[in-house]
Structures are given as C-alpha cells and as structure tokens.
C-alpha cells in the first residue's frame, strides 16, 4: 500500500500542521499525488469524470459485502491528485452512512485548504465531495 493510502486522516492533519506555509503544503500535496496509484484507462471514462474541476478528475467506487465503499480516483494534474488523495483519506473504506455523516468542510478547514485554495479550486474540491456523497446516497437507496 502506498504512503497516501496507508496513513490516517489524523496523520495527515498532523503532517499539515507541521508543514506551515502553502509552499510546503503544495509540495506535500504533490508527493501525495505521486504516491496515489494511477487508475486503469477504462476507469477514466466520461461517466467517472467529476464535474466542476478545472483539471480532469475521475472517480469510481467498489462496494464490499460489509457495506464499506472503496473509492478509486485519479487526476491528470499533480496537486489536484494530492487533493484527490485527501478526499480518499477522508472517505474511502467508510460505510455510506459514515460518508454522509462526515463533516468534510471541518476537515478542509482544519487542513487550511479552505483558506489557501482559490475559489475555482474549492469548487473543484466541492465537485469531488458531491460525487462521493452521490455514490454514498445511491448505495443507501439500493439497499
């Protein structure tokens, strides 16, 4: 398992706290993006494309019998891919209900992302969050 996916959300928050300025955080996001494995070309479909992002982001889900949802996502831009990794850390492997209960804005604020990212980027991030929540909601509806 790669660094990006082996750490916990708390690890990430701790890491971000130590990093300080946006330059260091940007660099760290690029590293996270590097560590996140590339998804297979067939998953980079129009259906899986997340809207609202300035760069291409794709997201798919795998559902386990125990009710947990594994998210698979990728981007063609490195810093965005780092942000994808943050979203996966916050959500992936959780149940649909837990996903819907997660206060993602609080996490983004805790990481300083709301303060540092431009509005266009925050819109992109919201697009990813919306996609995850839609996946969770349809999983609940299917049950």
């Amino acid at each position, binding site marked *: 398992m790669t660094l990006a996916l082996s750490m916990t959300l708390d690890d990430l928050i701790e890491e971000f706290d130590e990093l300080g300025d*946006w*330059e260091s955080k940007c*660099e760290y996001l*690029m590293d996270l993006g590097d560590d996140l494995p590339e998804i297979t070309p067939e998953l980079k479909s129009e259906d899986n494309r997340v809207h609202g992002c300035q*760069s291409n982001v794709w997201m798919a889900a795998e559902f386990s019998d125990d009710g947990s949802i594994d998210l698979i996502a990728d981007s063609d831009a*490195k810093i*965005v891919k780092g942000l994808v990794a943050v979203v996966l850390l916050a959500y992936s492997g959780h149940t649909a209900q837990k996903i819907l209960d997660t206060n993602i804005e609080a996490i983004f604020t805790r990481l300083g992302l709301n*303060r*540092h990212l*431009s509005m266009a980027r925050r819109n992109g991030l919201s697009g990813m969050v919306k996609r995850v929540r839609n996946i969770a909601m349809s999983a609940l509806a299917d049950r």
Partner: protein
Amino acid sequence: MTESSTATAHSTWDVDEVRANFPILLRPFESGKYRKGTLPVFLDSAASAQKPRCVIDKEREVEENYYANAYRGVYEFGARVDEELEASRAKVANLIGAASSEEVAFTAGTTMSINLLARGWGGKFLGPGDEVLISEMEHHANIVPWQMICAERGATLRWLPITEDRRLDLNQLDEFLTRRTKMVSITGMSNVLGTINPISEIARRAHEVGALMHVDAAQSVPHQAVSVINDGIDFLSLSGHKLFGPSGVGAFYGRRELLDDMNPFMGGGHMISQVYKSHSTYSDPPAKFEAGTLPIVQAIALGTAIDYVTSLGFDRIHAYESQLLTYAHEGLGSIPGLTIHGPSIEHKGAICAFTIEGASSYDLAEWLNSKGVFVRHGHHCTMPLHQILKIENSVRASFAFYNTREEIDRLVNAIDFTVAKLR
C-alpha cells in the same frame, strides 16, 4: 531604435523608483500562506495592471472633495466633476492621437466598447452577404460580439489565419479581404502570444476594399504609442485597468463622421436630445454613447493614469520591457520541455504564454502561487487560438515596466525546482 539609444533608455530606467509608486508591489507577505517577508511577484498585468499611488490618490481626491454626478448640475461639485471628466477625455484623445476629444466615449472597458461598435455600427450597416474579418488570435471580446451581430444581420464572420511562427498570415489577407468585407477588427497585441500586429498596413489594405478598421487596443495601448490618424484606424477600444488606471472604465474611439452615423448602443439619460412619447432624438457624440451615469471617479482617474504612463515615455517603457522579455525568454527557454507560444521577441510584447510537456498548467500556476509568484492559467479567453495551438490551456506570465529581472529569476527558479515533480 539603435543599439546605443536602447542602452541609454535602459540605463536611465530606475525600476526601483518606478516600483516606489506602486504600494501593492512593496508590501511583503506577513505570515501564514506565504513565506514571511517575501514580496509578491505580480506577473499578470495583461489581465489587469497594478495602479500607481497617483491614481489611487486621484480616486480618493474625487470622492473626498468634489464628487457629484456628471453633466447634471450647475453647483460647484458637479461643475468640477464635468471639468475633470473632460480633461480626462482629452487625455485619452491625446494618447491615441485622435483629432478631437468628441471622438472618445467613456465605456466600461474594451468588452463594452466592442459590443457598442458591433451593435451601434453593425446593427445598422451590416446585412446579408457582408463580411466582418477578425483573426484567429482574438480575445473572446473581439469574437463573440461579432458572432452575435453577424448572426442577427445575416452577415458572415471570417477568420484571418495565423502562421506557424504565430503571426497574422498577411499572405492570405488578399483572399480574406474583399469588396464584401465591411469591417476588419484585429487586436493590436495578442493577449496570449504577445504578437504585435502591423495595424497600419492592415488598415491601409482594409481601406482599399472599402472596409473600416477597428483595433482592440486593450493589450497594445499600455505598451506602445498609437496614433489613430497616422495608422488609419477608424475605431479603437481600450480598457483603463490594463493601462494602470481603475477598473470599470474604458474608452471607445470612432472617427467623428462614423460616430454620427452609428446607432446608439444603450438608451437612457444623458444620451438624448429630446424625448417624446412617440420617439426620441439623440445627443451628438460622445454623449450619444454614454447613457446613464458614467463610472465618474474611475474615468477621471484614468486621465491620471495616462499622465503617469506618458510621463514615463513609451520609448523608454518599450526599451525596458524588451530587455525584460529577452531575459524571460532566456530563462524560461532553458527549462527542458517548456514551450513559449508566440513569435520571436522582435515581433511581440511583454507576454510569455507557455506549457510544459507532461505538466498541468493548473499545477504550475498553483505551485507558482505558493511561492508568491502570481501568473494566470487557463485559456485566457482565447479558446479558438488554443485549439489552433493544440493545447487546452497554458500558463501566462505577463510583464509591465514595474517588473524586474529578479522577479523573472523567481519565476524561472520556481518552475525549475518543481518541473520534474509536476510531470
């Protein structure tokens, strides 16, 4: 300009003295997002330029001392505003070499100016079979208003191609310029490629077939002197905020007899002569094109910005910016995989739009931002041009006379440092 006079112009250019007039450039980052104590590197003047203190002070002077609506009152404040506005209008006319300030209308900016022209002129004079000629390097503001009016009037919009070295393909001009061409609307300087276009030659050839010449001077007017009379320009549009003046104000120039013949763009107060229940008659230009309350404070301070820029001197500005551009080309050109989209330096102004093979423009801009280097990314309102360049988007660093070689070093070093990581 000769080698020696270029050197002289540069040696007398004290960039620190110039920068001292721009408060925003001298304010170090305090803490938090950016490394404390570093200065911002502003490389987005082609989008909107920073304002010198005299412009900021002028806006405050108006607001604090004599603000009132224009052309309405006999009282002291109103009269003073009228005088200041007319002085500013005369400065715009003088800047572009117009015969009279009556040929200059204040607008909200270049976009509004071009819409005013497309609607006010095209809405009256364009018809089926007529053609409007633009080029492949135009900004959306010089594309969409023409698309709209051509569709409405049954006219055809044609596109003069660009060459492989990213200049207008004048060899094809004869093919595109015919007796059907009624208007040629071309940018003075591309906001992406930086290409400076041979306006007077195009104007001459446009006139040969009986077409009129409009110049989108939003990018060119902050960098080089222009003379509408000498260059044969019939209409010209410019923005105040790219000329180191306030946002929300721009200007539209038209030859007097052409303005007389045009329809007004918007109806409302001040643009009328008489209003009856059945119809209205209109004021003479430029009032005919100035319906409603003007951006009064901004329009007055635009005159101050023009005073400032002309006091620096366009020859000296051009000489200094050319040196910056050469330095930027050398620095950026040394980065492996980086392509600068545009012609060679002698054909362009101080803009470098670039892409790096395998790296996302968004990543680059965000990374540069984290280092306090402010550049723009995206399609820069030139989607057709980006399609021709076969890129989705690009990063653009644009320079003004207040930028320094050290700032270009920070741009180049920041990219150099991260380019391997971004791929």
